[in-house]
C-alpha cells in the first residue's frame, strides 16, 4: 500500500547527493593510484630527494609507497621507492619567522635529519625529455598524516 504512493521527491535528491558523495570518496580512497597495470610507456625515472627539517620520529614515517606531490598542489606524481636517513647538520629556515638557524644533532632524540628518498615517477608527464621537474625544484612528500617539503637533487632515467 505504501509502495504505491512512492515517487521521487527532494528527500531522494538529498539522499542521492549524499550517497554519491560517500561513494565517490570511497572510490577515490580505494582505486586512486592502486591500479596494478602501468598504462604509461615503460620508462622508469628515479628522483633523489632531500627532505630536511624532520625530527627522527617523523623521518621514520618516510617509507616505501609514500606519495609525492608537486609543491603547493594536490597532484600526485610518484611514490617513494626507498628512504635512507643520514644524521647531518642541516640549515633550517623557519617559514614562520623567515629566520634561518643551523641545527646540530646533540643527541638522537633532538636531531634534525637529512633524509634522502628515492622516488619512482608515474604518469606520462614526467619523461626526462619533457619533464616538468628539474633539479632544485620543491616537492611535497606525503607520509600518513605528515607532509614533508623536499628538494629534487638528482633525476635519472633508465633509458638515458
Amino acid at each position, binding site marked *: 500500500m505504501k509502495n504505491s504512493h*512512492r515517487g521521487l521527491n527532494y528527500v531522494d535528491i538529498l539522499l542521492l547527493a549524499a550517497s554519491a558523495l560517500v561513494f565517490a570518496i570511497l572510490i577515490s580512497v580505494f582505486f586512486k593510484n592502486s591500479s596494478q597495470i602501468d598504462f604509461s610507456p615503460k620508462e622508469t625515472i628515479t628522483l633523489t630527494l632531500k627532505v630536511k627539517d624532520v625530527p627522527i*620520529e*617523523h623521518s621514520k614515517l618516510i617509507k616505501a*609507497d609514500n606519495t609525492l606531490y608537486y609543491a603547493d598542489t594536490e597532484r600526485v606524481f610518484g611514490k617513494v621507492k626507498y628512504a635512507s636517513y643520514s644524521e647531518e647538520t642541516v640549515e633550517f629556515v623557519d617559514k614562520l619567522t623567515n629566520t634561518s638557524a643551523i641545527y646540530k644533532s646533540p643527541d638522537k632524540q633532538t636531531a634534525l635529519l637529512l633524509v634522502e628518498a628515492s622516488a619512482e615517477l608515474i604518469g606520462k608527464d614526467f619523461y626526462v625529455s619533457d619533464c616538468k621537474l628539474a633539479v632544485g625544484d620543491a616537492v611535497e612528500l606525503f607520509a600518513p*598524516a605528515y607532509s614533508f617539503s623536499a628538494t629534487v637533487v638528482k633525476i635519472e632515467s633508465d633509458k638515458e
Partner: protein
Amino acid sequence: MNDNHTNENYGQIAETLNLSEENTVSKAEGLINNLKSFFKGIRTGFSQKSERSVLSALLESLYIKFLSGKTKATAVFLLSFSIVSLVISYVLNASVGAFISDIDTFCAIVLFIISLILFTTNKSFHSLISNSKILSSLSISYNEQSIRISANASHSTETVYSTPFFLGIICGIFTVIYPVSVICSFIVSLICVLFIINRPECGMLFIISVLPIINNALLLTFACTTFLSLLYRYLLGKRHINFGISALLMLISMAYIIIRCASSSGNVFTGRLYLYLAFYVSCFSYINLIRSTAMFRRTFNVLIRMTRAFTFILVVFYICNMLLPDTIVDAFLTNLGFDSLIHSLSTASFVAPFLAMAVPLNFAMLVCGEKGIGTIKNVFYLILLLASMLYVSSYPLILISILACVSILAFYNKRFIFLIFPAPLVAFGIYKLFSLVPEAYRLSATAEKAMKIDLVIKAIKAKPIFGAGPEAAYSGGNMLLSILLTFGFMGLILLAAVLIFMTSRSVRFIISDVMKANTARFLSIGLLCAQLSFMSVCIFTDIYCDINSVFMFAAIISASVTSGKCYEADYIDQSMVREYRRK
C-alpha cells in the same frame, strides 16, 4: 504625603517594569515556540516525504536483504570471485609477465577457503552476526520479523545464487586492473556504509573499534557518514539531537575554524581543517548517539576491547622489533596493507595518549569489574599495558597514569588519597627502571618538544587572538601551542569551553549522591580519569597532527560525558523505540 505619592509612583514603575518583563519573556517564549514549531514542521514534512521516497526505501530494503541473506549466497560470491581472480593472476603472470604480488594471491586463496567454510552453514547474516561476539557488539539488532519476511521472500526467487555468482565473476574480472585486497576492502567498506546509513550507532562503534588500524581518509568518510546518517534519522524523527550549550559551543567552534581557514591566504582545505572539524563532528555525533544505558555500555565495551587489542599488538610489535632486524616487521605489515597500523604503532602522538587513556580505564575495570576470572583478565591486561609503557618510556606519561589510578582508588576509599604523595617518586623509579632498555627500541614521547619553541612563541605573539591560520601548521610540540599557533586564543578558549561544559555533567554525576559506590559510578570515574590523563598528555604531545588520536580523543570524551547522563536518567531513547515499533 510626598512619601505616599513617591511610593505610588514606585509601585506604578514596578508594575510597568514587571509588565514589560512579562511581555519580554512571553515574546521570547513565543519566538522559541515559533522556532520549535517551524523546525517541527520541517521534520514532519521531511518524514512524510521520506515515507514516499524511493531511495530511502531502497536503502532500507538493501539493509534488510543483506541481513536476511544466506551465508551460502556469500559463499557462492566468494568462490566465483576467488577462482576468477586466481585464474587472472596466473594468466597475467604467464602471458604478459605482469607482476601480481604474493599478498594478492594469498588474499584470493584466503577468500577461497572462507567460501568453503561458509558452504558448511546455511544461516542468515542476521543470525551469524547475533551469534558472533565481536560482530554483535558492533551492530545494532533489527526487527527480526522484517528479516524473516525478507528471507522467506528471497527463498522463493531463483536469483538467490545466480546473482552472487555473476557478481563474483564481475569483481574477479576487475582484478585485472585492481588488486584483490583493494576490491575486498572496497566491498567491506560499502557494507559498513550501508550499516551506518541505516544505523548511525554502527558507525560510531565501528570507528572506535578500528581507529588504530584504519586509513585516515576512510576514518573521515565513516565519521561523515555517521554524522549525515544521524542528521537524516533526526529529520525522520527516529533519533534525537540535543541542542544544549555544549552543542551550541561546538557549532560556534566549527564555524570559527571554517571562517579562520577561509580567511587565510593559503590553501583552505588543509589537513588541519579536517582534523579540527573531525573532532567536533565526531563529538557531536557520539554524544547524541549514546542516549541510553545499553548504548553507553556497548560503547564502553568496544572502547575497552579496542584498547586491549591494540595493547596486545603494541607489545608484540615491540618484542618483534627487539628480536628481529630493523624494518622487517614494518615491511611485513606494509605488504599486508596495514600502513595505518604501522603509523599508529610508531608515532608517539598516538601511542602516548593511548596509554594514558588505557591505563586508568583498565584500572577502573579491575577495581569495579567482575571478580574471579575477570580479575585475572584485568590484571593480565594491566601488565601488558605496563609492558607497552617500556616502548614509550616517558616520565610525565608514567606519572600521569599513576596519578589517574590513584584518583580512582581515592574515589573507592578516601584513605588512598595519601598515595598521591609518593606517586612522583614511584613514577621516577619506574622511569629509571624502564630507562635500562636500550634507547633504540623506545619511542620518545617528548621528541617533538625539541623543535624551536621560542620561534613558536614568537609566532604566537605576532598573532595572539586569531592565530597564524592553518598554513602555519606547526607539526609537533604540544596541543596547546599548536592550537594557539593555528587558531589563536579564540580557538583555545572555544575548545576549553566545549570541554568544560561537556565534562561538568560527568563531574556532577560523580560528586552527587544519586548512586553511591556502584559500578556505574566507578565506570564514570574511570572514564573521567582517562579523559583527564589523555588531556594531560596533550600538554607534551600534539594530537592534532594525527587523525587517529583525534578520533580517540572524541571517543573518550563522548564516553566520559555520556556516562553520567545515561546512568543518571537511565532512560531509553523514545525516538529509537518509536522506530522499532513502526517496523
